[in-house]
């Protein structure tokens, strides 16, 4: 469906609210001041997501949550492996690098951080649209970003061809960036954007 400039502004607002929630939650969790900004938002056909993502075989940490409710869909937050490493070390209070591919404690910490981030955006979408949404338990993959995303795109259910994409940047921890994607199920986008009065 066609996305207007107004709707993109709404999406940016959702991004701002979401990153505000995420920053607050992370500040509490990591006991330090964290700010988050949203440099870019997109509403694009899902085939084009890979173009924004860049190198498809770059390792990234991907958190995937299914969203239930009136405007169901799939929510994803992913960040570069270096960012994931910094975040997990901060969370676990460790100075040495952890093996994010096999260390279960590290993966569990990563899943927790990712869940906070992804939930922050889902709550923002819900607040903005007034439609209640419930996230599932999170699933984690630390692997090539292209591989993780194609698996999410193709998993059960028919997707809308438009994907909402929110770029986020954190400050307070050095060099951390991440991206949030919401893939609305068929029909959900209209409900979401309709509910925002646009």
């Amino acid at each position, binding site marked *: 469906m066609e996305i207007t400039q107004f709707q993109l502004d709404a999406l940016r607002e959702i991004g701002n609210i979401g990153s505000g929630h995420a920053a607050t939650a992370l500040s509490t969790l990591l006991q330090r001041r964290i700010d988050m900004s949203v440099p870019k938002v997109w509403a694009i056909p899902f085939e084009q997501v890979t173009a924004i993502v860049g190198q498809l075989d770059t390792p990234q940490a991907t958190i995937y949550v299914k969203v239930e409710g009136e405007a169901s869909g799939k929510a994803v937050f992913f960040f570069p492996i270096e960012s994931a490493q910094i975040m997990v070390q901060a969370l676990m209070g460790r100075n040495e690098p952890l093996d994010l591919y096999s260390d279960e404690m590290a993966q569990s910490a990563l899943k927790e951080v990712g869940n906070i981030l992804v939930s922050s955006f889902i709550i923002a979408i819900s607040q903005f649209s007034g439609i209640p949404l419930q996230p599932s338990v999170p699933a984690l993959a630390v692997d090539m970003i292209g591989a993780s995303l*194609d698996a*999410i795109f193709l998993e059960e259910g028919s997707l809308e061809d438009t994907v909402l994409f929110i770029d986020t940047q954190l400050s307070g921890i050095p060099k951390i960036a991440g991206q949030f994607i919401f893939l609305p199920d068929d029909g959900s986008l209209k409900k979401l954007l309709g509910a925002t009065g646009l």
Partner: protein
Amino acid sequence: MNGVINVGMADYKTARSPDILLTAGLGSCIGICIHDPLLKVGGMAHIMLPSAVGSLGGNPAKYADTALVLLLKEIVGMGANNSRLRAKIAGGAQMFSFPGKPPVLKIGERNAVAVEQELKRNGIPLLVSDVGGSFGRTIHFDVGTGELHIRTINHGEKVV
């Protein structure tokens, strides 16, 4: 110098030796590699779903059945002999699992089954099948030698 030709998602490309075909970050998608060892030509398709049946049009390169037909047609069009064609495939992983919830529909597995069936139906021997697991793959296919180079992040690297 060899050219490296990138094959995107839901896309297919053909090449002549010494060119290399590449597709990066295969998850539950599958890379189908076909070549004629004598003529040293071949192609690669990056398919996403098992079958175009029931889909509303769209890009035929997205589906195992329709993509293979297109790929074979183009390779044969380059002068390859159907009876000499050989296949190697990689991908079809299950990247995520949710605790306590077995996936109803393992799309990677279904893709692999569909690709194998379609190859069989078209009479193309499948020499190598590196499918499944829970990890991504990046593949390079040398259409001259038929060598398939498979790289993963944390599950090694091999040439088959």
